[in-house]
């Protein structure tokens, strides 16, 4: 029997964006948070290096510099009004986190500690600036914990292990969501005035990824099935430093603390690709440089990886070369103890998974699928917008990685994802509650759980021959090979053909678990269906964009083309096919220019 619930605001997802929305919405509106995981399992907890805010605790910094760096980092595809808003709000929002109890690492004066990160610069000198506010190398963990703790304090209502499978829209207005309770297999209809989607990204499309098993693009897939477009899906970030073969993230904070990337000749090759900021160039630039090094035979031992070296000897050597100093002007020198204290989790990961001790030897790394710049289109208040005119869908909000504001454009700067979730989580939550105060509940559509039942029954009744794990592996392989760091028409077409073949084969998948209680196979299959659709949307969007910009690097169109392509992609899924349109980028203060680091 389907159960019914009614809340002013329903938030889908309990990572940083969802929890921040919940804290803010629940102040004035009845609020429920639905999450397929226990909130503290959310992917925010894996973020490591820091959250960007121009506090200026260690050296001069200002939100204007942060804004420009983010615009430049986005390769001018980010909407500048939204980026400016985010960077201005950053300072206050980080203080709010501190006031909530977030245990930031501290400077000798007792202020929030900050470290350099890729693409964040002093706009006068062009040198790296210390802007990433951090808690050792577990900043995301501390943000997630602190937000969840505040939700407990404020008695936020959670529905843990509820998987949302459909979004209800009636008469062009949000009406609620439908979720399956994982424990019992029962469906629940949540009627709501406002729905906030905060379900995170979809890196599981690719073979080598830093993303959790559960990062399967549920929010975008659910929204697209209800006619909402996905924006800029061709832009997916490959983080330069994932553990070789495993993809586990090694924070950019390692390079912030002075670590460098070395090729098989022991050369610090970023000197050649980004002479000013070197290993602290933005992520797309470094991932491409790594590919080129490996292509030209300079991978370590001829293999597809490079060395990330944070041993004190190496760090101190290059600190002298770079003329890096401490805040008091003395030369920058680190000890093994300091590395251990600042990067404890990284040390632990390297020791556990590859048997490497980073204070005495380098770590083998390769680019790893990391972050979706694209997603559900929103304006800077988190309201979901439907078309090139930015028409708002009343009552529907999205925030965090699932959303595309767009503040990251074609390439996100490190530390701006944690910033995104707390800033836009906050404003979407406030806006959702404000809207809920003004309106009555929208009527539920007829047979509200019908489409959910149809989807899930389709999987449960699927008694074909196809093995889901094989389908997933084939998708991940082809996407990593051909819709990865470098792309070509031929490769992407091959990927698209494969993904369409897999989409067909998926209809013939074999289902073993027909039970109601804790049927994880049912959920995993439903998630795989989402991934395949988003792989298709990603590839179709990428094939159409005949230029190179940010994370979308085409060997056949190597230059950025502002005349034809300074615009956002919008992709709809209509009758099983992807349809594309475009909308303009908002440019306020910064005219596009060549991007050099």
């Amino acid at each position: 029997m389907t159960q019914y619930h009614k809340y002013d605001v329903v938030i889908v997802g309990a990572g940083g964006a969802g929890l921040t929305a919940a804290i803010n919405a629940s102040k004035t509106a009845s609020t429920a948070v639905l999450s397929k995981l226990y909130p503290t399992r959310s992917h925010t907890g894996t973020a490591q290096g820091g959250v960007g805010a121009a506090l200026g605790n260690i050296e001069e910094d200002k939100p204007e510099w942060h804004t420009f760096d983010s615009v430049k980092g986005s390769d001018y595809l980010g909407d500048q009004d939204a980026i400016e808003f985010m960077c201005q709000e950053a300072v206050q929002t980080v203080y709010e986190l501190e006031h909530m109890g977030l245990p930031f690492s501290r400077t000798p004066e007792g202020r929030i500690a900050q470290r350099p990160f890729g693409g964040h610069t002093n706009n006068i000198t062009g040198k790296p600036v210390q802007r990433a506010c951090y808690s050792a190398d577990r900043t995301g963990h501390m943000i997630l914990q602190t937000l969840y703790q505040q939700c407990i304090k404020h008695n936020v209502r959670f529905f843990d292990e509820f998987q949302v499978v459909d979004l209800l829209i009636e008469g062009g207005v949000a009406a609620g969501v439908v979720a399956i309770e994982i424990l019992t297999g029962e469906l629940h209809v949540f009627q709501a005035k406002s729905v906030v989607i905060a379900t995170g990204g979809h890196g599981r499309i690719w073979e080598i990824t830093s993303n959790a098993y559960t990062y399967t693009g549920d929010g975008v897939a659910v929204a697209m099935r209800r006619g909402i477009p996905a924006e800029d899906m061709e832009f997916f970030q490959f983080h330069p430093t994932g553990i070789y073969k495993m993809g586990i993230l090694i924070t950019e904070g390692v390079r912030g603390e002075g670590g460098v990337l070395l090729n098989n000749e022991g050369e610090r090759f970023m000197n050649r690709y980004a002479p000013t900021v070197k290993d602290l160039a933005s992520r797309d630039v470094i991932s491409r440089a790594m590919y080129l090094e490996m292509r030209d035979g300079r991978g370590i031992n001829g293999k597809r990886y490079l060395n990330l070296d944070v041993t004190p000897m190496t760090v101190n050597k290059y600190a002298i070369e770079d003329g890096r100093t401490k805040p008091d002007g003395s030369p920058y020198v680190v000890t093994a103890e300091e590395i251990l204290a600042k990067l404890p989790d990284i040390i632990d990961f390297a020791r556990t998974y590859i048997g490497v001790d980073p204070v005495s030897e380098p770590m083998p790394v390769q680019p790893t699928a990391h972050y979706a710049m694209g997603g559900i289109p929103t304006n800077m208040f988190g309201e979901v917008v439907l078309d090139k005119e930015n028409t708002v869908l009343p009552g529907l909000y999205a925030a965090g990685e699932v959303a595309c504001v767009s503040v990251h454009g074609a390439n996100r700067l490190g530390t701006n994802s944690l910033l995104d979730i707390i800033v836009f989580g906050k404003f979407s939550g406030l806006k959702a509650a404000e809207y809920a105060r003004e309106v009555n509940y929208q009527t539920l559509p007829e047979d509200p759980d019908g489409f959910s039942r149809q989807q899930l029954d389709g999987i449960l009744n699927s008694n074909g021959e196809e093995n889901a794990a094989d389908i997933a592996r084939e998708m991940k392989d082809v996407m990593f090979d051909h819709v990865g760091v470098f792309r070509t028409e031929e490769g992407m077409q091959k990927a698209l053909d494969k993904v369409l073949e897999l989409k067909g084969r998926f209809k013939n998948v074999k289902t073993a678990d027909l039970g109601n209680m804790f049927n994880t196979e049912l959920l995993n299959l439903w998630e795989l269906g989402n991934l395949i659709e988003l792989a298709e949307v990603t590839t179709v969007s990428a094939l159409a964009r005949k230029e190179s910009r940010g994370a979308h690097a085409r060997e056949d169109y190597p230059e950025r083309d502002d005349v034809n392509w300074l615009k956002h992609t919008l992709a709809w899924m209509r009758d099983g096919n992807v349809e594309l349109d475009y909308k303009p980028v908002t440019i306020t203060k910064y005219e596009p220019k060549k991007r050099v680091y």
Partner: protein
Amino acid sequence: MQVTLRVFRFNPETDKKPHYESYKMDAEPTDRVLDLLEYAKSYFDGTLSFRRSCAHGVCGSDAVRINGRNRLACKVLVKELKSKKITIEPVLGMRVIKDLVVDMEPFFEHYRSVMPYLVNDEPPPSRERIQSAEQHERFDDTTKCILCACCTTSCPSFWSGEDYVGPAAIVAAHRFVFDSRDRAGAERLKILNDSFGVFRCHTIFNCTECCPREIEVTRAIGEVKKAIASGKLD
């Protein structure tokens, strides 16, 4: 190398009592136990159920017993295990829902009972509160907790009475009791001084030994005990 995965199985919809099933498979020494579970689910039996998410020891979803010890399945490599026969069972002291999935609600109830959030009603400054590096260091270790429940479900005192708040909840309390910005230390210590509180701990050290985050759990519990006994937070 070939390994045999021997897994605790229980389907509440069809089974009267649990049983074990074995799956033989090829494994690399560097495979995570979680990789083997995923392989078994993908190629032997799709009904095999367990929780997992991040797969690198940060989210805390996949606490299970591996060859008798509480571990995260994603943080144990095949080469670390002495035996090629790997037994995987649900953690102890919690109701089994299905296979390796246990009911986590009582665990989170204990967590919520110790006021696991910063309490400070003084108006905050316009910037951050000042906290020295030394003050931060005082509770740094217990901020690492990922609520995986390895510690609590390895504790004989918890096994003998699940009303005991357990090590994880005490770690959460410790994180705030010793935070210089917090003002509810006395209240939390009062909660932990009751008959289901901190004095149920008999310093057996199972919790410390199995913590995947290497938190010195027993030491944290000891500091809370001492604070209760002395009435002082030093």
